[in-house]
């Protein structure tokens, strides 16, 4: 039995449809992220699950029981908010103890649980401090401990790291995942940060205009995007609007490219060719014979990203272009303005049919 099920959840605010009937099922102990841009409906979905808002249609089922109309205080769901939400009039310990007091647990048990949880989040020494005496990076773990104190059936996290700086964010997301695995708690996590979602989730659901575009494991989402939006949203992607020219070959602006995924597709069908930058090979012209279908282009920009340098190459006439990730040492031999060849292995590219899609903007990769 699924631990949490969202069945056809629909919510509109006046003429704006925030959720257009989403279905999602979380197994017990599973960590699922709702990923999407601002306004896609992910926070609305989480608020419906928490009970702070009611759906116009659809059901929320927890462990087989319909809780759609149950008040938030009776749902047994722990929630960590985007905003710092510790009660300012209470110390960290008192914050964690709050839910247990509401449940009228004996004092000795409460104290024991509070101390265990503060230890779990690595803040045993901060128990006597008030919220304003804690940094943001300490407040959110205390909020997590507070949410876990009541032993919730489902843990809900609403972009809990978005107000923190990058380094703390990375540390904390790993902490959240460690704690979630240790406790085996079913978790629904909302974020707009694809790196965050991919790094800690068992499965990721990408929301777009109130609908779930795709649900899958992080490698599936990254390697096999089901829609142009998912391809655009997750990772950086070269998107080349092409046509199937023959079996296993596509025509991109007059250039024939060998693509394994094009095998068996009807000739003439419009397709979106998706190529990850890390699969692109860029080499100076003259470094051996150019591979079949290789672009001959000029280097137009370098972006240093630490472990790789992102190199943008474009045809001299300003037409087609590709972005590739190369080791920084290699990037030194690819001076801006120099002529290079750019290619990708036929098996690495993905294809999406555009037969029923509006024509997307092609060419530039999307950096997220």
């Amino acid at each position, binding site marked *: 039995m699924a631990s949490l099920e969202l069945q056809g959840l629909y919510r509109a605010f006046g003429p704006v449809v925030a959720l257009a009937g989403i279905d999602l099922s979380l197994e017990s102990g599973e960590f699922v992220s709702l990923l999407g841009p601002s306004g896609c409906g992910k926070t609305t979905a989480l608020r419906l699950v*928490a*009970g*702070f808002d009611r759906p116009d249609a659809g059901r929320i089922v927890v462990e087989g029981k319909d809780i759609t109309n149950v*008040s*938030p*205080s*009776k*749902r*047994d*769901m*722990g*929630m960590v*908010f*985007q*905003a*710092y*939400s*510790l*009660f*300012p*009039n209470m110390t960290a310990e008192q914050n964690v103890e*709050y*839910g247990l007091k*509401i*449940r009228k647990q004996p004092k000795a048990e409460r104290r024991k649980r509070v101390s265990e949880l503060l230890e779990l989040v690595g803040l045993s020494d901060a128990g006597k401090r*008030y*919220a*304003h005496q804690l940094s943001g990076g300490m407040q959110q773990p205390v*909020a997590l401990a*507070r*949410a876990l*104190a*009541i032993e919730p059936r489902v843990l*809900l996290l609403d972009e809990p790291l978005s*107000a923190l700086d990058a380094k703390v964010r990375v540390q904390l997301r790993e902490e959240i995942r460690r704690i979630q695995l240790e406790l085996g708690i079913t978790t629904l996590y909302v974020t707009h940060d694809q790196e965050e979602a991919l790094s800690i989730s068992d499965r990721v659901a990408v929301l777009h205009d109130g609908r779930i575009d795709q649900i899958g494991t992080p490698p599936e989402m990254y390697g096999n995007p089901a829609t142009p939006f998912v391809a655009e949203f997750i990772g950086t992607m070269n998107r080349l609007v092409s046509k199937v020219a023959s079996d296993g070959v596509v025509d991109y602006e007059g250039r024939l490219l060998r693509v394994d995924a094009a095998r068996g597709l009807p000739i003439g069908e419009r397709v979106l060719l998706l190529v990850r930058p890390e699969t692109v090979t860029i080499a100076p012209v003259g470094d051996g014979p150019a591979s079949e279908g290789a672009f001959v282009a000029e280097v137009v920009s370098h972006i240093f990203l630490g472990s790789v340098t992102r190199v943008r190459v474009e045809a001299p006439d300003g037409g087609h272009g590709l972005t590739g990730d190369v080791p920084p040492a290699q990037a030194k031999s690819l001076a801006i303005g120099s002529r290079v060849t750019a290619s990708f292995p036929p098996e690495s590219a993905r294809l999406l049919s555009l037969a029923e899609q509006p024509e997307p903007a092609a060419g530039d990769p999307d950096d997220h």
Partner: protein
Amino acid sequence: MRKPRIAPSAVVWLLIGGVYFMLPLLATFLFSIKDAQTGKCCSLSAYSFILHDPHFWKTIKLSFRLSLETIVVGLLLFVPTLYWVHLKLPRLRPVIGFLALVPFVVPPIILVVGLLQFFKHDVHAPFWFLGKPDFFLVGAYVILAFPYIYFSLDAGFRSIDVHTLTEASQSLGAGWPTTLGRVILPNIRVAALAGAFLTLAIVMGEFTIASLSAFDTFPTYIQYINETQAYPAAAVTLMSFGITWAAMLSLLLIGRRGGQRTVRVGIGR
């Protein structure tokens, strides 16, 4: 570290302000310590007269009681109302803000005449309501105190993230009364106290409504003394002033203590 330098012009203005403020008090004090028989300095007979006057104690007790009742009724009425408005009906805030200005615009004399006309002649309110200060006067004083309580509480509610705190409390299993009592109220405590002390100061000094509705409160006692006893009038005026200042000082002290723990919560929505 260099000490901040105070500009000479600021010192001059401070001195002028100080003299403007202190001179009438000093004159009143000097007048109040004149001997009732000889008219010469210095005697505490005026203060002794006031402190030995049972009417003084009766009226000051009544005014204190009315202040406390007004504070209790005002806070019971406005804290849940403003909490709900901030949480669920934020669009009503300007409307309530406008209504809160009405007692500033309508003079107390108009208010009391209107109230008496309405309750005595229009609805024929019973004696227990019209004849007892705890009902009629407290009702009128809650209206008078509305702007002070409203603006204090509004500032308090705006300084916290009402939505997030409420939702956090609810997700942990708390109902509305627990959330209001254990989470929201403690975090707007300073604002509620500010409203309470301002109300205390207003009620302790309110003369028009009490006098016109024929109640014998501390301000009407001051007026009576003022008309009949020159030196005790000055003494009672200073005592009244002292009571108000003591209330303000308590507010300042409590506010400072509470302020050390008061922080802005959340990042808005």
